[in-house]
């Protein structure tokens, strides 16, 4: 409806702004291009821009424009069919100031070797995940998130593996590997094993989730340490967000991980040269690969760098939870199938059972409409909310979401006016049968894609789903049902997450953190295509509302 809706005009405006020297985020593009060319790489740049659906208060950005700079080191004797990527996000300030230097040093060293069989792409992306998304979309010619980017002039082959570097100081005490990617996807376990093998070979301390592994597995404290590490991984995976720049590569079946350098108070420090040697070793190993990494597990949980729990071990736990739902469904089916024992209500019962399905349809439709409202209203009506209330856009979005969520709790009292007849014993049973089966299928599908999310939802929803009937004490079960609803699960997870990371927060800070988590979740969905927010809004929340309906069934 204006100048910015046409992509061509948008691009023209962006280039005009650039020519007018509008300040673009502090990345030294020209210097990077010159330095990379001096190292003998083929250098290209890519411009991108994106207007976020609402301002991102964590990173303080709303209209994002940036430039990615990447240099390709061509393999001296090989055809240009495969590539490896080494990337360092460049943000203004001190966040990642050493990684680019290490990247350039490695480029210089790699250029002098003759044994590269794949092209190596050294990428410096701006605005971390947004820039990475723009680059990947440009590289693979896809456009799934509506971002605006200039096409890539230079290309390597198909990317086999990628590593992202985050280094804030030139000496590190330990290296941390981050594996969790978008939608809970993980790289092949071989990549983590490669990192660990090289850490041991070079003698650098390596951690996962920022925790050092202990050797005493038999003692209680050692075991609980491992369990806490694994719980951290579960929570990070369940959030569905990409915890490093690598997370966006996984969607394209490119194995990627992020390596973070941590400088804490420890005696033994490693300098950047050693980190460079570690990376060089990893890249030589990846260079010798003849196929993509596929021999090891794609679904695993790691209590430490040297141990993992494979899908064969943790899936049965989820399966047992799902079986509870199926048994409850079977029980309800049997109850529905037995003929009614009372004769005076015989005719009325038969009448009611024939309209049973229709009476179930109404709560279903209304719950899903509420879910759709929860999905669409917060972002669409933020301007209206900002006009009427004195809040910023982000707060408007989050508070609208919470308001719609709480508003849904009032529904059962209103739904029954819409049903033609009064609900009966048959009616709530049919509704519960449908709801339980729906929940089972939903949780099963979620656990297949993102096990941690499915498991956490199953832990909180399955007990309630099995036991809720209209006949249990209403107030107590209402409170329990609300406490185990997805929103409160998220609140508790935030607190537990902070607790596990040994940074416990007060209730005030926790609440603000919770609000920011909700806004980040919504932003992740719009920016990168994370599926957690639509899943919870459109499927899990309506399912939970069905059980709320059953509780207040009359």
């Amino acid at each position, binding site marked *: 409806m204006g100048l910015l809706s046409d992509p061509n005009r948008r691009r023209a405006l962006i280039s005009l702004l650039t020519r007018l020297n509008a300040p673009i985020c502090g990345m030294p593009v020209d210097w990077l291009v010159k330095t990379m060319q001096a190292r003998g790489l083929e250098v290209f740049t890519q411009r991108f821009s994106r207007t976020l659906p609402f301002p991102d208060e964590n990173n303080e950005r709303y209209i994002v424009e940036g430039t990615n700079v990447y240099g390709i080191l061509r*393999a001296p004797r090989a055809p240009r069919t495969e590539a490896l990527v080494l990337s360092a996000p460049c943000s203004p300030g001190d966040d990642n100031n050493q990684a680019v230097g290490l990247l350039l040093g490695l480029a210089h060293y790699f250029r002098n070797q003759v044994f590269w069989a794949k092209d190596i792409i050294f990428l410096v992306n701006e605005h971390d995940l947004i820039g990475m998304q723009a680059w990947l979309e440009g590289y693979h010619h896809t456009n799934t998130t509506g971002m605006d980017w200039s096409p890539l002039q230079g290309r390597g082959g198909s990317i086999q593996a990628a590593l992202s570097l985050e280094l804030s100081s030139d000496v590190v005490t330990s290296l941390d590997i981050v594996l969790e990617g978008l939608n809970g996807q993980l790289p092949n376990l071989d990549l983590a094993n490669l990192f660990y093998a090289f850490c041991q070979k070079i003698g650098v301390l390596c951690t996962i989730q920022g925790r050092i592994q202990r050797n005493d597995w038999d003692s209680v404290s050692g075991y609980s340490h491992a369990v806490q590490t694994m719980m951290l991984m579960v929570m990070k995976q369940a959030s569905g967000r990409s915890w490093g720049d690598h997370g966006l590569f996984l969607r394209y079946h490119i194995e990627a991980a992020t390596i973070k350098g941590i400088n804490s108070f420890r005696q033994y420090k490693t300098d950047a040269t050693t980190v460079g040697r570690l990376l060089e070793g990893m890249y*030589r190993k990846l260079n*010798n690969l003849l196929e993509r990494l596929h021999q090891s597990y794609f679904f695993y949980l790691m209590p430490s760098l040297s141990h993992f729990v494979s899908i064969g071990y943790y899936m049965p736990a989820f399966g047992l939870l799902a079986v509870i739902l199926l048994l409850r469904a079977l029980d309800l089916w049997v109850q529905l199938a037995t003929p009614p024992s009372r004769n005076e209500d015989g005719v009325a019962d038969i009448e009611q059972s024939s309209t049973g399905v229709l009476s179930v349809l109404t709560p279903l439709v209304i719950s899903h409409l509420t879910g759709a409202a929860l999905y669409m209203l917060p972002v669409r009506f933020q301007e209206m909310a900002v006009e009427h209330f004195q809040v910023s856009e982000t707060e408007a979005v989050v508070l609208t979401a919470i308001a719609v969520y709480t508003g849904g709790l009032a529904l059962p009292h209103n739904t029954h006016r819409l049903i033609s007849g009064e609900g009966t014993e048959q009616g709530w049973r049919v509704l519960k049968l449908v709801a339980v089966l729906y929940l089972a299928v939903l949780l099963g599908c979620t656990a297949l894609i993102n096990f941690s999310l499915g498991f956490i939802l199953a832990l909180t929803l399955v007990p309630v789903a099995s036991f809720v009937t209209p006949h249990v004490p209403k107030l107590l079960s209402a409170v329990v049902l609300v406490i185990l609803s997805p929103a409160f699960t998220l609140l508790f997870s935030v607190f537990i997450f902070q607790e596990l990371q040994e940074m416990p927060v007060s209730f005030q800070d926790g609440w603000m953190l919770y609000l920011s988590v909700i806004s980040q979740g919504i932003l992740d969905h719009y920016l990168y295509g994370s599926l957690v927010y639509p899943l919870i809004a459109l499927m899990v929340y309506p399912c939970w509302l069905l059980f709320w309906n059953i509780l207040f069934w009359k």
Partner: protein
Amino acid sequence: MGYFLSYYTYISFGCWVQNMLAAIIMLIFICFCVHFQNTAGQFFSSGHTNNWAVLVCTSRFWFNYRHVANTLSVYRSVKRLGIPDSHIVLMLADDMACNHRNPKPATVFSHRNMELNVYGDDVEVDYRGYEVTVENFLRVLTGRLPPSTPRSKRLLSDDRSNILIYLTGHGGNGFLKFQDSEEISNVELADAFEQMWQKRRYNELLFIIDTCQGASMYERFYSPNIMALASSQVGEDSLSHQPDLAIGVHLMDRYTFYLLEFLEDIHPASKSNMNDLFKVCPKSQCVSTPGHRTDLFLRDPGSVLITDFFGSVRKVEITMEAIHLTDPILQLEDGPMSEEVQEKTYSYVDQLPVSEIIHQKPKQKDWHPPDGFILGLWTLILLVFFKTYGIKHLKHIF
């Protein structure tokens, strides 16, 4: 009278002495002749007049560097001991020297720290890359090549050739993998050798194989004059020797590494025999148990020189005798010649040595419980029986 007697005795004595002398001289002469006959016999005792070598590496990809290094080290030894390139058929399935990942291009090393470059600068590869297939290998052995094939790709051996065949790569029980996509079985190989025997394409054949479970490949040979060596028995893996940290791969397999060490000590005049070759790489060095097979070989392995197969030794014998060619060449009589000809008639070997196959040790088969189908069939029969005649008949059985 006495005087006459003594004189007669003296003369007879002299005659006797003369006769003795003549006899002795005659005896010595005959002995000499016989001795010459023996050395002359020894001169041709090995029976071959030329040497060929067929060296095959069957695996590709960078991490199979060691198989190419194996083959090239045997090539190097064979060439050093005298077999020329025209008599060597070298088949390498992949190019390691010019692989993109080789940090030292144009070299293939066999020893750590890059001590020995077996690629050198005069390697002649006859079959390279994708040309190394089972079909091409068998065609080379049997000689069934299209007329357009160049001479360097042919095995032009005759019935007086000693052939060395060396195979290396990945193998299993009864097969050898070619190029990651096909296999040659031990039966095929045995039949190919039989074809070679029937077409008189070899005098004696030495077969060496360095793969996992290599002994299974020579189990099925049935043609005469074949001696076989393998690096490991059935059920054992052949292990690689040492990795080089700069190149990043394992450089050689253990058996061929120690074989190369052994061959480096052989020179064209050495008298080492096959028994020494059997002792190469005992279990303590190789971890697997090398095996050999000599039952098809007619000569005693102790009398077979290493250079009979690995080298191309021209025998030179200097004789002090003068051979007079003044007598006219006599017409050959028909009688003894025809006998000789009759002695030398050839006959076909047993096409299918049934008796041998029958008396081979039977393979140990694991007992499996009866097949599901048979169980089902019996159950069906039982059910029908009891349905027809009633369940009360069960009582009669139990």
